[in-house]
């Protein structure tokens, strides 16, 4: 304390005590405000996106030549029967009106019913969404962990053997289609070294450990593409950042090396990697179709594929709507994360 108040002789600002108290709340508040603004903006952008994408989705059903009335009733139906059936399905109304009605009830949680099984679409989706989400979230976690570990190590050891290996592996992984990765993993971990199940699904209630063992291979195979991209972007971003003056600044202050890399370099170098991760989210959800087929998982991708091949339009529309919703929510979260990471980015366009 004796070293303090050097300037007090010069008669500047009054004691710092009162000011220091409010410092403990001030920055926190602005941080929350920034987050709220970013989240609000992201959601505002999502509204027209939701309208456009659902409209496209709905038009898809309208464009299809599948007439559920004749599909359901079969070839022996009379024209009068078909007309009555069309009325039941609401197909006699103009397309735009049908879209608005569909959107309105979708916003209330009603996605209609399957043309064939008559099971409410919302119910089928609710049954299958947990499967897809757990695989997608698992894949996301694996991608983040693998991508961060290898991206950061490669950046820190620039030009070393690890860096070169990471570069080669990520370039090769970028050429592997998801189904080949899945098959390769099954071949290795279920056939050659049988340690994990080659497919199927058990709910978490059957035991967390068992659930995880069924989840692992699908998640890993779905994550590889994203992990490679994250590692590559993180390596580039961090390699640039590590040459910045503020890294020297942090070193001069005597901060330990791990702290400089994980706090100072990572924060500024992670932007592109986070953005790329955001771009991968739709692929993690959409790519689940492949994984669900190869590993025989009862997920939403499997539901969509079966429904689409059978011409069950309401199911396809509902499943697409839900996936779009998940995508929009996750991209809003990514935007918020980006703003939090790089406040200086506010100045950029």
């Amino acid at each position, binding site marked *: 304390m004796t*070293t*303090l*108040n*050097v*300037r007090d002789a*010069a008669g*500047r*600002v009054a004691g*710092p005590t009162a*000011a*220091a108290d*409010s*410092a*403990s709340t*001030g*920055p926190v508040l*602005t941080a929350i405000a920034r987050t709220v603004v970013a989240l609000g903006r992201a959601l505002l952008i999502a509204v027209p996106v939701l309208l456009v994408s659902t409209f496209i989705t709905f038009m898809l059903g309208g464009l299809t030549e599948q007439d559920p009335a004749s599909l359901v009733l079969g070839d022996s139906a009379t024209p009068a029967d078909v007309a009555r059936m069309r009325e039941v399905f609401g197909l006699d109304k103009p397309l735009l009106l049908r879209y608005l009605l569909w959107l309105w009830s979708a916003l209330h949680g009603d996605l209609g019913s399957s043309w064939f099984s008559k099971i409410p679409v919302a119910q089928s989706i609710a049954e299958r969404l947990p499967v897809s989400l757990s695989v997608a979230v698992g894949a996301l976690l694996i991608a983040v962990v693998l991508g961060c570990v290898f991206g950061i190590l490669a950046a820190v050891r620039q030009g070393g053997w690890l860096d070169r290996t990471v570069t080669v592996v990520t370039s090769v992984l970028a050429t592997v289609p998801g189904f080949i990765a899945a098959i390769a993993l099954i071949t290795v971990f279920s056939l050659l070294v049988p340690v994990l199940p080659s497919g199927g699904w058990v709910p978490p209630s059957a035991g967390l450990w068992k659930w995880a063992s069924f989840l692992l291979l699908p998640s890993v195979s779905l994550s590889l593409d994203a992990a490679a991209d994250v590692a590559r972007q993180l390596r580039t971003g961090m390699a640039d950042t590590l040459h*910045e*003056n*503020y890294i*020297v*600044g*942090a*070193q*001069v*202050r*005597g*901060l*330990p*090396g791990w*702290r400089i890399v994980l*706090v*100072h370099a990572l*924060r*500024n170098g992670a932007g592109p990697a986070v953005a790329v991760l955001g771009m991968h989210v739709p692929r993690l959800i959409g790519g689940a179709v492949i994984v669900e087929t190869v590993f025989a998982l009862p997920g939403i991708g499997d539901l969509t594929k079966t429904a689409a091949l059978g011409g069950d339009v309401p199911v396809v529309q509902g499943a697409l709507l839900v996936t779009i919703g998940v995508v929009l929510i996750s991209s809003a979260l990514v935007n918020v994360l980006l703003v939090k*990471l*790089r*406040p*200086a980015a506010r*100045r950029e366009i």
Partner: protein
Amino acid sequence: MSVSPDSATAVRAAADAAGESGRETLLSVRGLRVSVADGSEVVHGVDLDIPRGSAVGLVGESGSGKTLTCRAVLGLLPVGVEVTGGEISLRGTELTALPAAKRARLRGTDLAAVFQDPASYLNPSITVGAQLAEVLRVKIGLARRAARYRAVELLHAMGLRRPTHVYSQYPFELSGGMLQRVLIAMSITAEPELLIADEATTALDVTVQAEVLELLTELRRDRGLTLMIVSHDLAVISQMCDTVHVFRDGSIVEAGPTRRVLRVPRHPYTRELIENHERFGIDRVRKQRSQQ
């Protein structure tokens, strides 16, 4: 007068100056050699002695090796540049032999530095206050709240108005003079004995420059901080330093008490520097004015 002493005699002169004041040597650099990866040597055997509590100036044009000497002392040479010979000892401890982690621990607590262009030495994505508090937490071990409180106090002590406001600002929201004060606050938080100021005031407005220099003088007076001031500006050196070392092409060509070197320069290069300063400096204009 025409004698141009080699670096050995120059150093002896500096050592004498230190000896006269009777203070113990804080930092001692002996025969420091620095080379680039391709083998070319850029610093050729520099000798420096910095007595505790003194202010030592390093002067010379850019590329003369003064900044690399500082970086070598800090143990933060750029990638591909290495110390290839000589010794750097701080209070008798040989630094060049220490492992990197140990040297990192010395920075901040034993020696610290501020540079030109303060904005680039702060993380653009973290508020300046949080960065200051981080140093307090890591180097002194303060708890989160205590670090925040102390950081605001320090900002205030550095003469920053509205320290709480400054605390929550990002680097791009503050002026160069304010940032340099923040950086000085960061560098002295862990009470180092030696502060290296490498062109720390070069890019600042003249009035701001004077304020920052005054702050450094106060820190030296009140805390006994030892200063190593690197500048190409003789005015700064003459105002701040007890002794001065003149760098040229990676060697010290002349060293001695500032007053003596500036009044009676022995090396032609020093004379050239002083002449240039006089010819283009503000003193000349003022002198002409007063003669008229």
